[in-house]
């Protein structure tokens, strides 16, 4: 299997709920969140010893970008490590606020919408072969990205014409174009920003901003895994189905509201297909290309994909242990049965939000996980390890090694995805343009010269 670099960026919602009247600027809260993670006086932007980037993004959101991962499994684990890292910062920030007399509680949500219709994203990055024509890729992948929400959506109750309706996707209503270069004014399915953070003659970056933030590891695994598999098929010259949607943006919204999954969408070839039929067509193209007997992660993914589509054709409730929107839907409906209330009850809206609370003592997703109602792919030990250590098989390993050394030696440094720089004597900027390289003799030499001994991590 061809190796691919993958990264997930997550913007978290952050709020302070005061008991009584209090005004607290979020900038102050963000400052407390980043304390200790980032040296005092630095801008809120830091690479961590695990190779990840933790920073303050547009709109005062804490954002976590995973280090470069070379497997679906690593992406799932490192995405989870980002949640734990932010969670670990909540208590110290809360304490500071308590000490200063701000009465109330701090919350962080891994979701994509607030109560006013503002959105914040979960962006996927895939390194793709520059040889592959971008518009060919976009044309063949957009119908997949539009329809994958039927198993990747995080679920959300929106109001439509004054009526509360359950939607499969949080993000669908916020996407306005099929592809564009903007991430804030006119959000698109595929963002054309092409920063490969690698040799641009060999690679380009595929930046996907249409996806929901997922709590379920299985959902993240499918989202990233199936995308990687189809990209590999395209790079290897596979023929993907001719399912170009006449209006991809409108289709996103239609599918999101169609829990019965019966609506046929118009294609440019004048045929009509449902979201499920489009997914079946992709699955069969992938099976044709890789063969149904293929082993390894692609083999597993093909089986899981088939099982999920089969389940969605029958009774979706059987996916409540693995697919976010189904878990949330079932939880809300159990609550409504018990309370005799409707979907527009404020407590249901609270559940909608609290499903995404990353504090494990409060979050409803974590309640399900604790009760063994959600399939889990990582272990606590793997996630703890990922909070401290970069993946060992990508450039992130070099970055992690360098940051760990600089921190322990008390040396000022600056780092970005493609360079490392130690300030003071031996000042040198080291370019790391190969994201697959996990070993850099210059970094080891620098570390050796500076310490007189090879620094082992």
């Amino acid at each position, binding site marked *: 299997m061809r190796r691919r670099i993958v990264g997930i960026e997550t913007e978290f919602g952050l709020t302070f709920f005061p008991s009584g009247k209090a005004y607290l600027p979020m900038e102050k809260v963000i400052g407390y969140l980043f304390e200790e993670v980032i040296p005092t006086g630095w801008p809120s932007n830091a690479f961590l010893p695990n190779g990840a980037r933790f920073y303050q993004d*547009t709109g005062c*959101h804490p954002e976590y970008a995973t280090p470069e991962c070379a497997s679906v499994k690593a992406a799932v684990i490192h995405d989870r490590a980002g949640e734990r890292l932010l969670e670990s910062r909540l208590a110290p920030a809360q304490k500071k606020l308590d000490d200063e007399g701000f009465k109330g509680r701090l919350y962080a949500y891994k979701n994509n919408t607030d109560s*006013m219709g503002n959105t914040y994203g979960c962006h996927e990055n895939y390194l793709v072969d520059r040889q592959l024509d971008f518009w060919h890729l976009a044309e063949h992948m957009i119908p997949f990205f539009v329809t994958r929400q039927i198993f990747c959506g995080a679920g959300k109750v929106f109001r439509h014409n004054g009526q509360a309706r359950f939607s499969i996707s949080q993000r669908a209503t916020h996407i306005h174009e099929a592809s564009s270069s903007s991430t804030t004014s006119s959000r698109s399915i595929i963002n054309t920003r092409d920063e490969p953070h690698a040799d641009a003659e060999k690679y380009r970056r595929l930046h996907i901003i249409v996806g929901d933030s997922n709590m379920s590891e299985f959902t993240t695994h499918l989202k990233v895994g199936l995308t990687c598999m189809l990209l590999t098929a395209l790079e290897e010259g596979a023929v993907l189905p001719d399912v170009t949607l006449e209006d991809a943006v409108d289709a996103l919204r239609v599918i999101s509201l169609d829990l019965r999954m019966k609506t046929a969408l118009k294609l440019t070839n004048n045929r009509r297909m449902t979201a499920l039929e489009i997914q079946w067509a992709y699955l069969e193209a992938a099976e044709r290309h890789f063969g149904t007997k293929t082993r390894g992660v692609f083999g597993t993914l093909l089986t899981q994909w088939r099982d999920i589509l089969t389940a969605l054709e029958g009774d979706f409730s059987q996916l409540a242990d693995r697919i976010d929107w189904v878990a949330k839907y079932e939880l809300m409906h159990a609550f409504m049965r018990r309370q005799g209330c409707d979907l527009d009850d404020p407590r249901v809206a*609270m559940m909608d939000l609290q499903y995404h609370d990353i504090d494990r003592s409060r979050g409803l997703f974590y309640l399900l996980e604790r009760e063994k109602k959600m399939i889990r792919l990582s272990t606590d030990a793997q996630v703890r390890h990922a909070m401290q250590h970069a993946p060992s098989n990508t450039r992130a390993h070099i970055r992690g090694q360098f940051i760990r050394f600089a921190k322990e030696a008390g040396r000022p440094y600056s780092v970005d995805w493609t360079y490392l720089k130690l300030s003071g004597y031996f000042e040198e900027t080291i370019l790391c343009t190969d994201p697959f390289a996990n070993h850099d003799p210059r970094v080891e030499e620098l570390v050796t010269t500076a310490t007189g001994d090879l620094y082992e991590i």
Partner: protein
Amino acid sequence: MAQKKETRHKPSEKETTEETEKPSISDKGKELTEDMDKLMDEIDDVLEKNAEEFVKNYVQKGGQ
């Protein structure tokens, strides 16, 4: 539409055997739904009490 049928009606041998071994689709769904019902006491314990005000106040600046 002809192609639609082609995509839907191709259960492999493996799939058909597996389906007879597993509990039926609706059984598993029912089981998971019952599991959710059993969690409702715990939901009552953890769900934020001032739901209406909380949700109304949850306003973020737009991100990316």
